[in-house]
């Protein structure tokens, strides 16, 4: 009985700590590289993005999250063949204002996955798959359904519609 109580207490503390860790990393989520590859087909952005994780799969998922995060909060850099893209939510306070919304949006298996498709042929490979201290760093090509993502955030009241100012 005592052992069971201890186990439950430990699990609760551990889950709480993980949640706090996630919140902390969620707010300081800015340390990733992203480049625009080419102009994507209509309504999409075609980018190469890097992610870090303990395994290659985890790093790949992190890279997908980063791609969507960049479209929402950072914007996409330009390249030789494509102009830069401004963020969907340019207001720096958006994340704090809608933190619960984005916690759900970017949760593992969350809605963000509907707006990003990996276009890497097979698994991340070659120099795009690097063993680093604590895990893997991978670079993947992804297509972000930018217009759909923007419409979703506007519909949910997170992003302002262009027409809202008039």
């Amino acid at each position: 009985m005592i052992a069971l109580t201890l186990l439950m207490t430990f699990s609760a503390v551990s889950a709480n700590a993980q949640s706090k860790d996630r919140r902390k990393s969620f707010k300081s989520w800015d340390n990733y590289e992203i480049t625009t590859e080419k102009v994507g087909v209509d309504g999409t952005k075609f980018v190469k993005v890097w992610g870090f994780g303990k395994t290659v799969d985890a790093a790949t998922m992190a890279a997908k999250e980063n791609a969507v995060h960049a479209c929402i909060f950072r914007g996409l850099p330009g390249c030789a063949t494509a102009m830069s893209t401004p963020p969907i939510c340019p207001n720096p306070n958006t994340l704090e204002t809608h933190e619960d919304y984005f916690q759900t949006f970017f949760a593992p298996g969350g809605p963000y996955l509907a707006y990003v498709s990996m276009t890497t042929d097979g698994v991340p490979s070659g120099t795009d798959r690097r063993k680093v201290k604590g895990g893997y760093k991978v670079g993947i090509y992804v297509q972000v359904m930018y217009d759909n993502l923007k419409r979703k955030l506007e519909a949910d009241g997170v992003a302002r519609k262009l027409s809202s100012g008039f």
Partner: protein
Amino acid sequence: MIKKIFISALSLFLLIPAATGQEKIKEVVTSDYNRNSISMVALLRGDSYDSQAASVVKSYKPSEKFDINDLKTKTVKAYKTRSESVYQTEVNEAVGKVGFAREILASIFNRDSNGMMDDKTVRYRGNYDAKDQDVINARAARVGTDALGDLGHALVSGSYIVVTDFSKIERDTDQRGNVHWSTNAKAFAYKIGLDSDSLNDFYEKCWIYDDDSDAVKQAKRVAFQNLDIPMIPVAEASSSSSASTLEEAMHSCISDLIFNLESRIPAWEVAVTIIGKRPLRAKIGTKEGLRNGDRYRAYSYTEDRNGNLRSVPRGFLRATEISSNSGMSIGETDPSKFYQISGLSNIDEGWTIKQSNDSRIGAIAGLKVGSMGTSIAVDLDYLANVSNVGTMSYAILSLGFDVADGNSNYLPIYFGIGFAYGLHLTRFIEIAPYALVALDHMGYSMADKSDDRFLRESALVLEPGVRAAINVAYPLQVIAKVCYDVNPEFIQGSLYKMYNQNLSHPHKSGLGAQFGLKWTF
């Protein structure tokens, strides 16, 4: 003075490790590989062999991994007798007299007599070179797959010429009247000195459009003739061969030269990533000239604490099942299969593999003991085939010298040929049943000149056995063999029988064992 010397020595001591460190950072093996194009050029010496040399070089067909640039100039001349080898500087001089870079551009862009050019070849090569990732990227981009042809422009800078020279050609006739030709050969590879800036410069200054005025067209023709693009020496290789005809010997040399150059020009070494395990698979095949048994080396990548990328060698593998990918990529290329032959870690998906040519010849040196005496044994094996499950077929040559009973007049020699079939329990251990047919020869009397003397001094021996090879540090292996030598008296020559009786340990049927080391070249 002493102080200066001390400071210089100290600086050198400190700089060498720094320079080596920088070199290591540069040596990152990447999976970037694009098709290269070559043109074969013969070096003439102004003698009677020129026509054969030019003809053989012209008719040589390189591997499918290369595109061919058909140049107007197929020979250059060196003023040196064929009894001497040529040096790089002499070939540079001969190459410098011809505008090879201009000829390459004229060939790739189909330049006609009016100076008009097109990009059909470039676009074709771009489409042909495109990998699945390029096709997928093109589909995800607004430009679409039509833009794949643009990749061909980057291939122009991967144009090479290979200048081939034959020297020291000799003709020998043996006692039976058979003629043998032997020749030495050298190849000098040059790469076009064209970067993206100079290529853009070429498009701007030399590309004639239909609506250009006559004056502009003429100015562009002149600009093309005045193009000053160097050919940069990148590697050289040498070889020698002999055959019953000079053409055969020359042809054999060229194949060796290209094989050797492949190992010396990193851009020629095919690199690709592993896309699947069990069996290992990678998207290369006939288009890259891949053949069964070809050796590749695997690399993974790490970042050091400063963020510098490092490639880490992780073992070797050999091609087993080759896919036929000689066509345009549609994003679903069939992969070829591979079998891992060394390395502590299992080769994983996403790792890079890079061509690492070897001759597939293993040399074994060791000591053999048993019923056929105690001999120093030297075996050579040639890897003929590798299967998906790691079975390997070998052709074997075996040579043994019975040192225990030999003396200055008398050295029993054992010479055999055979076949081995290797089974891999793991990649570290190979068990290979084998069979040899051998001649055990005991030469003694030099006075006997009769034709059948050799046979009378020999015995036919059959040697079935099993060979075990264990990887120590590939390509070094430890070898142990157990065999049963069948040496029946009824197939022993008369002189052999007599000499054999004089041995302190006469050769006879029975068990034998051999231990040694094997190195694969």
